[in-house]
Every structure is written in C-alpha cells, then in structure tokens.
C-alpha cells in the first residue's frame, strides 16, 4: 500500500466532510489488492482448465513439504510422482479413454512447509484457482486431512497417497481414493501375530499422538487383547517429542519382552538414539520408519543402533513378484536412480504408485470429469497389481491392498548400513527372526 494514499485516506476520517470519497477510494484500493493477490498467488499456476472441449494437457495438482517435520518423506514422494510424470510424458502422455487420445501431464505443485493450515489454503487454491484435473495429497495423514473436506465440498476426487489415518475412511466417500498403502489400522496385524506366536509377554507400546500412529497403536492393543495379552505399558507422547530419556526409563522398569515405538521419522530417530545413549537394550525393539527411509535412519541412528530392530516390510525391502502395470521394483530402482537425486525409499515408490493408479484409472475413464475418473478407479480396483502390490479400494476410499509383513535388521550389514529381512509371516520370510536380540 502506498503511504501517501493511506495518509490522505485516514486524514479524511478526522475531518467532518462526507465519507463518500474515502469510501470509493478504499473500495478501489481494496479491490486492487484482492485482484493483485489473486494474480500473485495464481501466477505459478498452469493456465489450462478442464472446461475447454479439447484439453491439450492433464494438470495434476499436489502439495509437498519443502521443509519441516514431513519434508524428509514428502520430498521423495513428490520425486516419485514427478518420475511417473516424466515416464508418461516420454511415451507421449497419459491416455484418456473418453477423449481417445493421450494428454501430456503437467504438475502444479505448492510448498506447504509441513503446515496443515497453509496446506488447506493451498488445496483450495489448486481446486478453485488452478482447476486441476487430478488432485493428489501431500505425504501423511496430518497434511492430507485438510484436503479431505475441501475436496468433498468441491466434488473433486482426491488421490490420497500416504494419508492412512483410519478416521478418514469411516463413511462412504466418493471423492477419496487411497493409493499406495492400506489404512494404518491394519498395518500391525502381522506384527501382533508374530508377538502372539512367539508368546512374548510384557509388551510396551509408546506412540505419538496423531491419526497415523494412534490407529496403529489401537490396533495393536485390540489384537493383543483378542490374544489374551494386555500391554504393560501403553502411552501416547506428543508428535513433537524429541527426548525419550525418561520414557525409556519408565519402559525399562516394566521389564518388557518387546517395545513398540510408533512415531514419525523424527520420533523413531530420537527414540533409537536415546536407547543407545542410555545404554539400554530390549529383547525386541520395533519402530516404523527404518524401512521407509533407510538412508536417513542409518545416517542419524547409525548401523549399530538399528541392528536387530524390527520394522514393517514395505518396498524396497518387500518386493512384489506379480506386477501387471508399470515398472517392477528392480526396473524402478534402476530408472529412478538415473532420473532423480531423491533416495529410493518407500515414499518415492508411493509417489510413483499414485501416478500408476491415476494413469490406469484414466485409461478406463469415459471423460475427464471427476465422477468419470472415480468410475475409472472402480474399474481397475482389484485387478491392478503394481510394484506396491494389489490395488483395491472400498466405498469409503480405503485401500485394502495387502498386509505389511514384519522385517528385522539382521547381520551381515551391507554397504547401505542396514539389512532388513522379512521375518514374518513365514510364507514371505527371507530370514528367521533373532529373538531376543543379542
């Protein structure tokens, strides 16, 4: 705002003349500002819209966290999606059944800095200002949550990549599709089966208070209960927790046979580090992220800190044999390595998988309308098999997919600093579990 203008404006309010003139001026100024703001925010956006009869490109809108708590997962996820887009564009674009032709993919991305409030505004921007054809969410439940109502209100189909919080999928929702993972509530099923099979008593659970971790913790608790076991320690800590020293002492006092720490990457790193710092070893320690972000965990925790710990078996540790669409993991790893500087980890696989789901759904969609795309998703549900396994959604948008096996970091340590092997269930196992940890 220009100073001279505001000075004249405000001056008016002290004089006794009519207020009509300042009112007009202000209106003009206000409008100017709004319009300018609109232009400013819209500037990086694509200009294409879905309303024209012959679209030349397909706009895919997404958010990423360039910094903050989720950046370490969000950036590789975006890299995976970008990798998919470049692969598709190399082959001439993505085929839309209803148009009978291929469209080049154009990504529209904004940085939400791991902040859900900013994310809400930006999701709204993607839908109402950029009119993207396909909307995908940022990494994780926290940054996906704001998108869900906004998408629903605008009848925009939301491709939820990794927001697996159980609360999103409680009622039928035609505007939501979870692409890369089953809901977090079913993740721990094989884990608990393992605990019960090994007859491990004194189980301690510490989890971060967020949708993602709490739903896992609740599943652990109820499955254990069904098996006749009550955890000796079951506590929530804030997701911002970075100091586990006293928590570890409290857990240690219960003399646990297994300790499950369910958190995000920062929490897992802090927990594993504080274990080492306090010189404490449990017979079994399980955390969530060592298999999803192996490089980061090895760097921050060290090979020694990860040794004999457990985690979920996800790609790349878990390699699906039957792939009927897109690259196999081996092919992906090779191509992605040459294409991107991002690490090959679970989020990058998830980003790529989301692209594949979109691609296959469009190949079955009769038009670019959101309902037609959703129909395309229904058409492929149950038959699509990617490097991330079966893709199957229910009416609330939840992915049933496949259960996540249990993995353990076993010697010998490879060059990467960790060597997670599937240890349960037996059908998928590549090694047998070492319990208790030496």
């Amino acid at each position, binding site marked *: 705002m220009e100073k001279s203008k505001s000075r004249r404006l405000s001056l008016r309010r002290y004089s006794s003349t009519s207020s009509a003139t300042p009112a007009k001026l202000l209106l003009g100024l206000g409008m100017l500002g709004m319009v300018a703001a609109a232009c400013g925010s819209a500037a990086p956006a694509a200009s294409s819209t879905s309303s024209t009869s012959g679209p030349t490109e397909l706009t895919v809108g997404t958010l990423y966290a360039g910094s903050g708590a989720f950046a370490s997962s969000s950036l590789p996820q975006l890299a995976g999606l970008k990798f998919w887009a470049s692969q598709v564009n190399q082959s001439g674009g993505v085929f839309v059944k209803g148009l009978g032709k291929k469209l080049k993919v154009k990504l529209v991305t904004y940085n939400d800095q791991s902040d859900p409030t900013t994310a809400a505004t930006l999701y709204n921007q993607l839908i109402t200002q950029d009119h993207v054809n396909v909307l995908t969410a940022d990494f994780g439940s926290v940054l996906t949550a704001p998108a869900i109502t906004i998408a629903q209100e605008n009848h925009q189909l939301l491709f939820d990549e990794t927001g697996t919080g159980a609360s999103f999928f409680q009622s039928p929702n035609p505007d939501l599709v979870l692409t890369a993972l089953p809901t977090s509530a079913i993740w721990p099923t094989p884990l608990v089966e393992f605990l019960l099979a090994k007859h491990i008593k004194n189980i301690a659970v510490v989890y971060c208070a967020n949708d993602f971790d709490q739903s896992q913790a609740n599943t652990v608790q109820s499955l254990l209960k069904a098996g006749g076991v009550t955890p000796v320690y079951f506590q929530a800590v804030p997701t911002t927790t*970075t100091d586990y020293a*006293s928590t570890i002492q409290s857990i240690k006092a219960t003399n646990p046979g297994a300790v499950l720490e369910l958190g995000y990457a920062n929490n897992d790193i802090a927990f594993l580090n504080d274990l080492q710092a*306090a010189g404490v070893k449990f017979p079994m320690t399980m955390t969530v992220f060592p298999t999803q972000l192996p490089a980061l965990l090895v760097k921050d925790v060290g090979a020694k800190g990860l040794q004999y710990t457990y985690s979920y078996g996800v790609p790349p540790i878990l390699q699906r044999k039957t792939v009927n669409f897109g690259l196999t993991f081996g092919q992906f790893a090779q191509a992605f390595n040459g294409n991107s500087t991002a690490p090959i980890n679970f989020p990058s696989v998830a980003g790529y998988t989301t692209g594949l789901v979109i691609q296959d759904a469009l190949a079955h969609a009769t038009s670019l309308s959101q309902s037609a795309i959703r129909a395309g998703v229904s058409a492929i549900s149950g038959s699509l098999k990617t490097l991330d396994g079966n893709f199957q959604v229910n009416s609330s948008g939840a992915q049933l997919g496949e259960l996540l096996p249990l993995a353990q970091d076993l010697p010998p340590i490879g060059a990467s600093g960790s060597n997670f092997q599937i240890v349960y269930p037996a059908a998928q196992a590549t090694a047998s579990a070492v319990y208790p940890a030496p």
Partner: protein
Amino acid sequence: MIYAIISGLLFGLFFAFVGAGLNLLFGVLKLVNLAHGDLVVVGGYLAYEVSVKLGINPMLAVPLGVIPAFVLGVGLYYGTVPRLSRAEDTETTSLVLFFGVSMIIEALATILFGNNLVSLSPLTFGPAVQLFGQSLPSYWLVAGGITIPALVIFYLYLYRSQFGTATRAVMVNSDEAATSGINVRRISAIAFGVGTVFAVASGPLALFMLGGISPGTGIDLTLTAFTVIVIGSLGNPVGTVIGGLLYGLVLSFVQTYLSSWAAAVPYVLMLAVLLIKPSGILGKRVRNA
C-alpha cells in the same frame, strides 16, 4: 527415582544456564528479551555446523561463539535500547520490540538452515556412563561439566569483578549508578553482551538436552527460561539457579510419572508462581499493576 532426581538436577542446571543471561538483562535493563531463546538456538546451530562441517567436537562452539555473541549483544543493545527508552510504556514496548527481533532471528535461521529438526547423535561423547547405579547418557556429564563452571563464572563476574559491582549498582538504581561515575550505557551494553554470550553458550547443550533444535525452539526456550527466573525471582541472579533446579526436578518427576502432561510444566508453573507469589521464591516485594 534416583534417575529422576539426577535428571532433574542436570536439566535444572541447564535451564539455569539458559535463564542466567535473560535474568541479567532483566535486572539491568528491566526488559524481557524475548529473543533470548532464539539466541540459544543460534548457539545450537553454531555447534551443529562446527560438528558437521568442521568435524570437530560441537562443544568447541562455546569458546568460538563467545566473541561474536558478545559483539552481537552489544550491537543489539545500541541498536534498540537507547531509542526504546523514549517510549511511553518502555516495558511493554520492549516486549514487542524483542518479539520482532525474535522473529527476525527465527526467519534467518529458517532461511539458512531450513525448519527441519537438527540433531547430533547423543553418542557424540561416547556410550552411556554408569554412575550411582544408573546408566546415564554421556552428554549429561558434559552438561554438568559445562553448566557448573559457567554458573560459577557468572557468579564471579557479578560478585567479584569491578564490572560486576557496577552492573549490580545499575540493577539497584541506574540514576544512582550514573551519578556514582558509572557509564550506565556502557555497563548495560556489556550486560547485554554477557547475557547474549550465556544464551549462545547454552545452545550447544540444548542440541543434546532437548534432543535437537529447530528455528521454532526459540520461543519455547524463552518461555521456559522466563519461568525459571520467575520462580527464582526476576533480577536475582542467584535465584536463577534455585529456580532452574526446582523447575528441572518438577519437570523430571512429571515426565516420569505423568508423562503426557510434561509439556505443560513450564506454563503451569509460571502461572502458579505469578498468581500466587509474583515476586518469586527469593523475592520480597510484590509487583502488581
């Protein structure tokens, strides 16, 4: 139990270290430096860089940081306080002002280091140490080995040096000090410098004691430090240590027995002290509006 006490005392000393500079500034200038916690974070980043980029012991950041921190503090003083003292409500205005300074530091830290959590391995100083029948993180010993001498130096500066006596004279009454031949501005600037040095010097420890730092850690640290000095009485340097130890013990016990409420400890303690005994544990005069 023993573990909780040891933990409480060590964290208490650490928070006394963090609070010492803030209390010094309040005593001398009667203002709350809301950027204090951010200065601690700056020290933490310095240690992180020293460790990661230069590959040397992060605690070397403490001696490395002394002179730049002193210069920064003196600069901050001359850049703000002389003009500030003309304001109508100096105390509230200074609060807003240093809030702005806090935002600037936080923004610069974000621009330079990103807003990710930055941490160093707690094994930097070796594996766990067996002491009093407990297995303690080695960095706790480092923390004790740094905070205790630092607080002793702080005490000697205030009570045994000529500058210290002059500083305390300014704390008691700046007009009286000026007419005793003391250059109040210079003493205040030095106090600001020393306060900043203590803030920055406590940063490397924060990296370990807090499990890591991010630009947003600053405001929490300021509040915690304020709580510590309110408990021990504002403007009373000895009170800071008592306040710190008390705070550390309460925190440690709540963490052990009521862990989900641990984050509320500084705030609830601050409110309790301000509403029940605003003058703090060592304070005599009640300070109401």
